[in-house]
C-alpha cells in the first residue's frame, strides 16, 4: 500500500460568483432573450446545475448582428489599428488578472482538470490576445497587401472542449483586423464566454464589437444563415462543418472550418522511450481526449511494441482520475452524457470488432460523466476505432514495420489535422514530416500550442488557418 496518498487538494470555488441566470450579451449589455427561453448548464463532474442561460432565437441573433454591424460601421471599422490594439492588450491583461476565476469556472462548466485550465487554457487564451494585439497596428506588414481591410461582421461558433481558448482563437484575430463579432459558445459550456463578456465591459470595449449569443444548434444555425454576416468561422465536428458549408454555399460569406481529426502518433524504435510514453499519454488523455488534434492512433514500430506498451500501461495506471477541481487530478469528467454515450458506443464497437480493450483499475465517481482511460491493442486500419473520431480518452494502438508503412498508415484517414513523430534521428523527423498530410506535425512532443504557430487541417479536418500570421488572413479582405 502506498503511504504517500496525496490528500485532497481542491481549488476553492469561492473565487467564482455565479449568477443564477444569464442573459445574452448584445450591444454591450446583458439582455433577456425575446421569447424568454432558457437552458441549464451543469457541471459534468457532479451533474449539479450551475446556472440558467438564455437561448437565443433568430430574433435575438438578428439584434446581435445589427449591433455588430453598427459597431463595425461607426466605431471599430474606422478605428486605427493602434487604438484597437489598446483594447486587445487590456483584455489580455484582464484575462491574466482574472485567471483564477476563469480557470475555476472553466473546470466547473467543462469538467477538465484545474491543472489544465490553470496551466494551459487560460494562459494560452491571454497569450492569443497579447499576440494579436501586437498585429493590430502592423497589418500592412503582414503580407496581405498595403492596406488589408476587415471583412465586416463575423459569426463564430465554437466547441465545448476548450471553451475560453477557442473563444480567444476566434475573437482575438477578428478584432485585431477590425471586424466585429457575434459568437455562439457551445451549448454545454457557455459560462466562461459570459465571464469574458464581463471582461469586455471592464475593458471598456465599445458596445457591439463583441456579442455573445448562447443557445444550442438552432442558435448556431440562425447565425450561419443570417444574411448580414460576412464570414463564418466554425470549430467543431466534421458533420456540422459539412452542414455549414452547404448552408452558405452560393452566398458571399467566407468560411473557415476547423473540424475533426484522427491523428497518428508515430513511435520509431529509436525513440526516447520514456518521453515518448509521456507524449502518448499527453496526446490522448490531455483534456480527457476531447481534443480535435488528439493523438488517438498510436503507430508503434513492431520491434518495440511490447516494451513500449508495458511502459505505457504502467504510466496510464498512475493517472489520477477524479474531481476536476483537485489540483492533483490528471483526467477529469467527460463533458456531457451525450459524449459519454458516443465514447461508450465506439469502445463497444472496438471490442465487438475484435480489438483488445484495457483500462487501469481506477475508481470512478458515482455522480457525473466518467470514462476510464482506455487502450485498445490489436487494432487494424479496418476497425471503426481506427477510423472514426472518438473524442474521448481512448487510444487505438497499431503497429508498423518500416517508415514507409508508418507514413502510409498515418495518411490513410479522411482527416489530416495533426501527427506526431518520435525518434532521436533528426533526418528521420524531417523526411517523415515532409510526407505526412497533416496540418501540424509535432516531433518528440505532442499537443503543444502557441499563438505564433498556425493551426489547421488537411482533407476533412477543415480549411483555413488559425494562429500566427496565417490566422490574420482568414479575417482580411
Amino acid at each position, binding site marked *: 500500500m*502506498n503511504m504517500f496518498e496525496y*490528500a485532497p487538494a481542491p481549488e476553492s470555488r469561492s473565487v467564482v460568483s455565479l449568477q443564477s441566470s444569464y442573459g445574452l450579451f448584445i450591444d454591450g449589455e446583458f439582455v433577456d432573450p425575446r421569447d424568454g427561453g432558457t437552458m441549464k448548464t451543469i457541471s459534468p463532474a457532479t451533474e449539479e446545475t450551475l446556472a440558467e442561460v438564455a437561448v437565443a432565437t433568430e430574433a435575438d441573433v438578428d439584434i446581435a448582428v445589427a449591433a455588430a454591424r453598427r459597431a463595425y460601421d461607426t466605431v471599430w471599422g474606422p478605428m486605427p489599428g493602434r487604438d484597437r490594439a489598446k483594447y486587445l492588450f487590456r483584455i489580455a491583461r484582464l484575462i491574466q488578472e482574472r485567471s483564477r476565476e476563469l480557470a475555476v469556472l472553466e473546470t466547473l462548466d467543462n469538467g477538465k482538470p484545474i491543472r489544465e485550465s490553470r*496551466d494551459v487554457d487560460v494562459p494560452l487564451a491571454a497569450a492569443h490576445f497579447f499576440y494579436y494585439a501586437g498585429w493590430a497596428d502592423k497589418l500592412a506588414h503582414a503580407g496581405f497587401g498595403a492596406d488589408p481591410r476587415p471583412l465586416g461582421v463575423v459569426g463564430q461558433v465554437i466547441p465545448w472542449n476548450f471553451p475560453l481558448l477557442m473563444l480567444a482563437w476566434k475573437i482575438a484575430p477578428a478584432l485585431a483586423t477590425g471586424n466585429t463579432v457575434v459568437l455562439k459558445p457551445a451549448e454545454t459550456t457557455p459560462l466562461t464566454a459570459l465571464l469574458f463578456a464581463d471582461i469586455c465591459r471592464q475593458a471598456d470595449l465599445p458596445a457591439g464589437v463583441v456579442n455573445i449569443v448562447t443557445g444550442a444548434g438552432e442558435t448556431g444555425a440562425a447565425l450561419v444563415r443570417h444574411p448580414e454576416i460576412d464570414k463564418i468561422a466554425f470549430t467543431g465536428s466534421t458533420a456540422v462543418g459539412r452542414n455549414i458549408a452547404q448552408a452558405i454555399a452560393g452566398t458571399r460569406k467566407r468560411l473557415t472550418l476547423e473540424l475533426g481529426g484522427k491523428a497518428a502518433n508515430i513511435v520509431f524504435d*529509436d525513440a*526516447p522511450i520514456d*518521453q515518448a510514453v509521456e507524449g502518448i499519454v499527453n496526446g490522448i488523455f490531455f483534456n480527457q481526449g476531447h481534443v480535435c488534434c488528439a493523438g488517438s492512433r498510436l503507430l508503434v514500430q513492431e520491434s518495440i511494441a511490447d516494451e513500449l506498451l508495458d511502459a505505457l500501461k504502467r504510466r496510464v495506471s498512475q493517472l489520477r482520475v477524479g474531481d476536476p477541481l483537485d*489540483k492533483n487530478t490528471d483526467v477529469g469528467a467527460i463533458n456531457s452524457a451525450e459524449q459519454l454515450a458516443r465514447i461508450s458506443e465506439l469502445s463497444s464497437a472496438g471490442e465487438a470488432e475484435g480489438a483488445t480493450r484495457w483500462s487501469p483499475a481506477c475508481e470512478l465517481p458515482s455522480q457525473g460523466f466518467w470514462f476510464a482511460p482506455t487502450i485498445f491493442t490489436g487494432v487494424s486500419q479496418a476497425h471503426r476505432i481506427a477510423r472514426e473520431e472518438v473524442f474521448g480518452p481512448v487510444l487505438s494502438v497499431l503497429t508498423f514495420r518500416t517508415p514507409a508503412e508508418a507514413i502510409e498508415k498515418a495518411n490513410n484517414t479522411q482527416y489530416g489535422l495533426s501527427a506526431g513523430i518520435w525518434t*532521436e534521428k533528426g533526418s528521420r523527423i524531417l523526411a517523415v514530416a515532409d510526407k505526412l498530410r497533416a496540418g501540424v506535425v509535432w516531433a*518528440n512532443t505532442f499537443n503543444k500550442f502557441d499563438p505564433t504557430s498556425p493551426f489547421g487541417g488537411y482533407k476533412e479536418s477543415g480549411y483555413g488557418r488559425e494562429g500566427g500570421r496565417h490566422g490574420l488572413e482568414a479575417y482580411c479582405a
Partner: protein
Amino acid sequence: MPEQVHTESSLRRFLHGLPGVDTVGAAQRTAMLGTRSIKTTAKAYAIDLAIRMTDLTTLEGADTPGKVRALCQKALHPGAGAPRVAAVCVYPSMVATAHEVLRGSGVELASVATAFPSGQAPLAVRLADTAAAVADGATEIDMVINRGAFLAGRYLEVFEEIQAVKKTCGPAHLKVIMETGELATLDNVRRASWLCMLAGADFIKTSTGKVTPAATLPVTLVMLEAVRDFAAAHGRTIGVKPAGGIRTTKDAMKYLVLVNETAGPDWLDPARFRFGASTLLNDLLMQRTKLSTGHYGGPDYFSLD
C-alpha cells in the same frame, strides 16, 4: 560478471544502445510533477519520510572534530518528536570521531572516499582512502566515479574501478557519485547510471555538491527510470540519492513526488532513496512544527550546528 561487460566494446555497445533521453521532454515531465499539491496528511507523512531519508552532511575543509560531533548530536536529537535522519556523511578523516558518537545508535555513518570530490588520484590511493574509512567505522561509502575516463569513453576502466571499490567496501554500502553536472547530458546520466548499477553500486548518487549544477529534478528523473528498469531486468533494487542544492521542504516534496510517480512507492524508503543535504533538515523541522502547531517558530527555535 554481467554479459554486457565482457569487453570494452560490448560494454560500449550496451550503454550506447540504451534509449535516448529527450531533454525537453524530461524537463516538462518534472515541471508537471512539480505542480502536485501535497497537503495536510500527505505533507505530514512526506516531511517525516524526508527527515528519515536525509544524509546529514558536512564536507568542508574547515571540518573539525567539534563540528562533526555537533552534527552527529543533531542527527541523534533532531528535535521534539521528529524521527532520526538516515545517516551522517563526513570526510574519511572524521569517520573515527563520528563513529564514537553514532556507534550503536542506528544512524548510519557514511563517508565520502576515493579522493572526493575530483577522484583525480591513483587507484591505489583511492582504494586506500576507502579501506581507511571502512576500518574507522563507516557503514556507507560515497565514492566518485572517474569522470575523466567516462568522458573519454573508457567505460570498462570506470566499471572495473567501481568493482574494486565495492570489493574494498566489504560489508559497507556503496553509493556511487556520478557528478552529473560534469557528465552534462541526460544521455550520459542514463549510461553512467547503468554502468554503476552493473558494476555493483547499492546506490547511485547525483553529485558531490562541489560542482554546479548539483542535483536537478530531470537528472533524478532519469536515474529513477534507470533503477526502475534495472530492477525489472535484473531483479536487484538500487537506491537513488540526489545531493546538493536541495534546501527546502518544497524541494524535498518535489523529489518525493518524482520518486512516487517514477520508480514507484517501493522506493519511498530510506533504504532506497536518500537526500544528501546539510541545511534541508532545519527547514523540514520548521515545516513539521508549522504543520502540527499551525504557526512558524522563529529560526532560533531550531538548532544551528
